[in-house]
C-alpha cells in the first residue's frame, strides 16, 4: 500500500511531463492549465496521506521499487526512503510547488510556450522528488542532475534572447563543477563503504573516529557539489543570472527547492559531516562569507529579482552556517520557512512585474501599495518574515540559527547578526521603493497598473498564510513551545555524534537578551530605512548621484563576474585559441588535409586512364580477365 503510494508520488509529475511534452503545441490551454498544477496537487495529496500514515506508524522505511544495477559488488536498487527528513522535503516540494504551478497558470497565461513551461516544471518536480526521496546517493544524483537540467531549460525558457541562453549555460556549467565534486565523493563513498545506500553507509560510518582523512575527503567533495547547487562562494554567480527565467521558475527552482538541495544533502549526510571537523570549519567559513557577501551585494541592486536572488544566496549561507555547527534541525527549519517566504517574495515580485508589463527596476516603481493591495499585504508579510519579525516564520528559524551560532562562537553570531541587519535593510529598501512614494514609471505603465487576477493572488495569500504560521511548527522551549519539528526530525539526526545538540552554555536570560538585541537592531534598521527612503526620498535619485569607492565596488557586485572572466574564462579561451592554432590547424588539420590531397592527386593522375575510347576499355577489361585467369592458375 505504502509502496504503491510512494511510487505514485513521483510518477504523477513524470506523467504530467510526458503528457504535456508529447502534446506539445496541440493541447488546448484549458487542459494544460488543469494538468500542469493538477499532477503536483495529486502528488501533494498523496504525500499528505503518506505523512499522516508515517505519523501513525513512525518507522523510517526503504521501499525497493526494482533492482536497478548489479555490477559485481555494486548493487543498486531503485529505492525510495520514507523518513522524517524526506517527508518534510516532499511536503515542501509538492506543496510550494503546487502553489507556484497554480500561480503560473495566471502568470504565463499569454506566453506562447505555455505547454512547454508546464512540461518542464512537471519534470522539475519529478526530479526534485527523486532527489529527496532516493534511498541511496545514486538516486539522489539522478535527481541532482535532473533538476540541474530543468534549471537550464527553464532559465533559457525564452530562448530567443541570447543573454538568457548565456545565463542558462552559465548556470549549467557552474553546476557541472559542483556535480563533479559530488560524483567524485560518490566514488570515494563506494570504495570506502562498498555501498551507496544511505542506511548501510551511515551504519558503517557511525563507529568511525572523527577526522579520518577519507571522511574529510568525502565530505569536502560532497560539499563542493552542495556549493555548486546551492550557490555558495565561489560558485554563486550563476544564481543572479538565473533570474533570466520566468518569475515562477525563480520562485520554485532558484529559491524554494532546487538551491536547497545542497542543504538537504548535507543534512542527510549529517553522520558523515560530524565525523569531519575540517569540513565543518570549511563549510562554516564559506557559509558565513556567503551570507554576508551576498547580503552586501543585495544592498545596492536595483533589479527586483536580483535583490531576491542575492537574498536567497545569503539565506542559503545561513542554512550552511547552521549545518556547520551541527544545528541540522535549524537548517531544515530555515529551509522550510525560507521556501515559504522566498517563494512568496518571488511570486509577489512576479505580480509586480506582471502589473508593470515586464519592468524589473525598482527605481521605476513606487506607490503600488494602493493599486495592488493583495500583492502589497502578502509582500509585506514575507518581508517582515525574512527580516525576522515575530511571530512570523522567519523569526523563529533565524533565531534558532543565531542561537546555535552564538553557542559555537561569538564571532559567528556577530557576522550572522550583521547579515540579518543587512537582510532587513535591503528587503525594506525593496519594499519602500516598490510600494511607497509616487509612481516613477511611464504614464503608459501607470495607466495599465492593475492587481493581478485571482489565480495569482490566491496562491500568494496561501503562501502568506504559511509564511505567517510556518514558524509555529518549531517553537523553541524559551517561548514555551516544544520544538515539534526538532522532535519530528530527531531520528534522522540521532546517529550523528553532536546530536541532540543542547544549547547548554546559553541560559534563557542570555537567549532573551540576544533576541531582544537582534529585534531592536532590526527594527532600528527598518525605521532608518523608512526615514531614508520614504521620508527623505533618497534612493529615488539616479544611480550615479552619490557614489564613493566602496558603494561603487559593492554595486558592481565586487567585480566577481569580471574577475572570473579574467582569471578563468579568458585564460581558457586563450588556451583554446592556442590549441586551435597550433595543435588543431597546424598539426591535426594538416595530417587530415594531406590524406585528402593524396586522394585528390591520385585521382587526378588516374583519370587520364578514362579516355572515353570504348575499344581501350574493352582492351583493359580483357587484359584484366586474362590476368585473373593467370593468377588463378598460379595460385
Amino acid at each position, binding site marked *: 500500500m505504502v509502496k504503491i503510494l510512494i511510487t505514485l508520488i513521483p510518477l504523477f509529475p513524470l506523467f504530467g511531463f510526458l503528457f504535456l511534452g508529447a502534446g506539445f503545441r496541440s493541447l488546448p490551454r484549458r487542459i494544460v492549465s488543469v494538468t500542469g498544477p493538477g499532477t503536483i496537487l495529486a502528488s501533494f495529496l498523496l504525500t499528505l496521506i503518506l505523512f499522516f500514515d508515517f505519523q501513525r506508524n513512525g518507522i523510517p522505511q526503504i521501499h525497493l521499487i526494482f533492482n536497478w544495477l548489479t555490477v559485481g559488488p555494486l548493487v543498486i536498487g531503485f529505492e525510495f526512503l520514507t523518513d522524517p527528513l524526506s517527508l518534510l522535503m516532499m511536503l515542501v516540494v509538492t506543496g510550494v510547488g503546487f502553489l507556484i504551478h497554480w500561480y503560473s497558470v495566471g502568470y504565463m497565461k499569454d506566453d506562447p510556450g505555455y505547454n512547454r513551461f508546464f512540461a518542464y516544471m512537471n519534470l522539475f518536480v519529478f526530479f526534485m522528488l527523486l532527489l529527496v526521496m532516493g534511498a541511496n546517493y545514486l538516486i539522489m544524483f539522478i535527481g541532482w542532475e535532473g533538476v540541474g537540467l530543468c534549471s537550464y531549460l527553464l532559465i533559457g525558457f525564452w530562448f530567443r534572447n541570447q543573454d538568457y541562453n548565456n545565463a542558462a549555460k552559465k548556470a549549467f556549467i557552474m553546476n557541472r563543477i559542483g556535480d563533479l565534486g559530488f560524483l567524485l565523493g560518490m566514488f570515494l563513498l563506494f570504495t570506502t563503504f562498498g555501498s551507496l545506500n544511505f542506511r548501510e553507509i551511515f551504519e558503517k560510518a557511525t563507529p568511525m573516529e572523527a577526522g579520518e582523512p577519507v571522511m574529510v575527503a568525502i565530505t569536502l567533495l560532497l560539499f563542493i557539489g552542495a556549493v555548486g547547487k546551492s550557490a555558495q562562494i565561489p560558485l554563486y554567480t550563476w544564481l543572479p543570472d538565473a533570474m533570466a527565467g520566468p518569475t515562477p521558475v525563480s520562485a520554485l527552482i532558484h529559491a524554494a527547492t532546487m538551491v536547497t538541495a545542497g542543504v538537504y544533502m548535507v543534512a542527510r549526510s549529517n553522520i558523515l559531516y560530524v565525523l569531519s571537523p575540517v569540513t565543518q570549519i570549511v563549510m562554516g567559513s564559506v557559509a558565513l562569507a556567503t551570507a554576508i557577501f551576498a547580503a552586501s551585494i543585495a544592498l545596492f541592486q536595483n533589479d527586483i529579482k536580483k535583490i531576491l536572488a542575492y537574498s536567497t544566496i545569503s539565506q542559503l549561507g545561513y542554512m550552511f552556517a547552521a549545518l556547520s555547527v551541527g544545528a541540522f534541525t535549524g537548517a531544515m527549519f530555515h529551509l522550510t520557512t525560507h521556501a515559504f517566504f522566498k517563494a512568496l517574495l518571488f511570486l509577489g515580485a512576479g505580480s509586480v512585474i506582471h502589473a508593470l508589463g515586464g519592468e524589473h527596476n525598482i527605481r521605476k516603481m513606487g506607490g503600488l501599495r494602493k493599486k495592488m493591495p493583495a500583492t502589497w499585504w502578502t509582500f509585506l508579510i514575507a518581508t517582515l518574515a525574512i527580516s525576522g519579525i515575530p511571530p512570523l516564520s522567519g523569526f523563529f528559524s533565524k533565531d534558532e540559527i543565531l542561537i546555535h551560532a552564538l553557542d559555537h562562537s561569538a564571532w559567528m553570531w556577530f557576522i550572522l547578526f550583521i547579515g540579518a541587519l543587512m537582510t532587513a535593510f535591503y528587503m525594506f529598501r525593496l519594499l519602500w521603493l516598490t510600494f511607497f512614494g509616487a509612481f516613477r514609471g511611464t504614464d503608459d505603465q501607470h495607466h495599465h497598473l492593475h492587481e493581478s487576477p485571482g489565480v495569482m493572488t490566491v496562491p500568494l495569500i496561501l503562501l502568506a498564510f504559511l509564511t505567517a504560521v510556518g514558524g509555529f511548527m518549531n517553537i523553541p522551549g524559551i517561548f514555551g513551545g516544544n520544538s515539534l519539528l526538532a522532535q519530528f526530525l530527531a531520528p534522522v539526526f540521532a546517529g550523528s555524534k553532536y546530536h541532540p545538540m543542547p544549547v547548554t552554555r546559553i541560559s534563557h536570560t542570555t537567549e532573551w537578551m540576544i533576541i531582544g538585541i537582534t529585534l531592536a537592531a532590526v527594527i532600528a534598521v527598518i525605521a532608518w530605512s523608512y526615514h531614508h527612503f520614504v521620508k527623505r526620498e533618497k534612493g529615488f535619485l539616479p544611480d550615479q548621484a552619490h557614489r564613493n569607492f566602496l558603494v561603487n565596488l559593492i554595486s558592481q557586485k565586487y567585480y566577481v563576474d569580471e574577475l572570473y572572466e579574467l582569471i578563468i574564462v579568458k585564460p581558457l579561451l586563450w588556451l583554446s585559441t592556442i590549441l586551435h592554432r597550433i595543435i588543431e590547424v597546424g598539426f591535426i588539420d594538416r595530417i587530415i588535409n594531406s590524406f585528402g590531397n593524396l586522394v585528390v592527386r591520385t585521382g587526378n593522375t588516374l583519370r587520364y586512364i578514362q*579516355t572515353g575510347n570504348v*575499344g581501350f576499355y574493352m582492351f583493359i577489361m580483357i587484359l584484366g580477365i586474362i590476368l585473373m585467369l593467370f593468377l588463378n592458375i598460379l595460385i
Partner: protein
Amino acid sequence: MTAIPIDYYLIFCSILFCTGVIGVLIKRNALVILMSIELMINSINLLLAAFAAYTNDPAGQIFVFFIMVVAAAEVAIGLAIIVLIYRTTHSIDIHVLNKLKW
C-alpha cells in the same frame, strides 16, 4: 564411326573465341564489333554442345538454346543502340563515342 576427339573442338572453339576477341578489340565499326561478340557467344555454344555430347549430359545442349534466346534479345538491343548512335552521330565508328572522357 569414330567420334571427333574433344581436343579438336577445344582448339577450334578457342580459335573462334580469340577471333571474336580480336575483332572486338581492333575493329572500329560497331556492327562488326557486335558480330564479333556473336562469334564469341557462338564459340561458347559450340563448346557447350560438344561437352554435352562428350559427357552424355543433355543439360548442356538445353543451355545452348537458352543462350541463343538471350543472345537474340541482346542483339536486338545492341542493334537498337547502334541505330540510335547512328541517328545522333551519323556514324557507327565507336571512336566518335568519346564524350564520357575526363
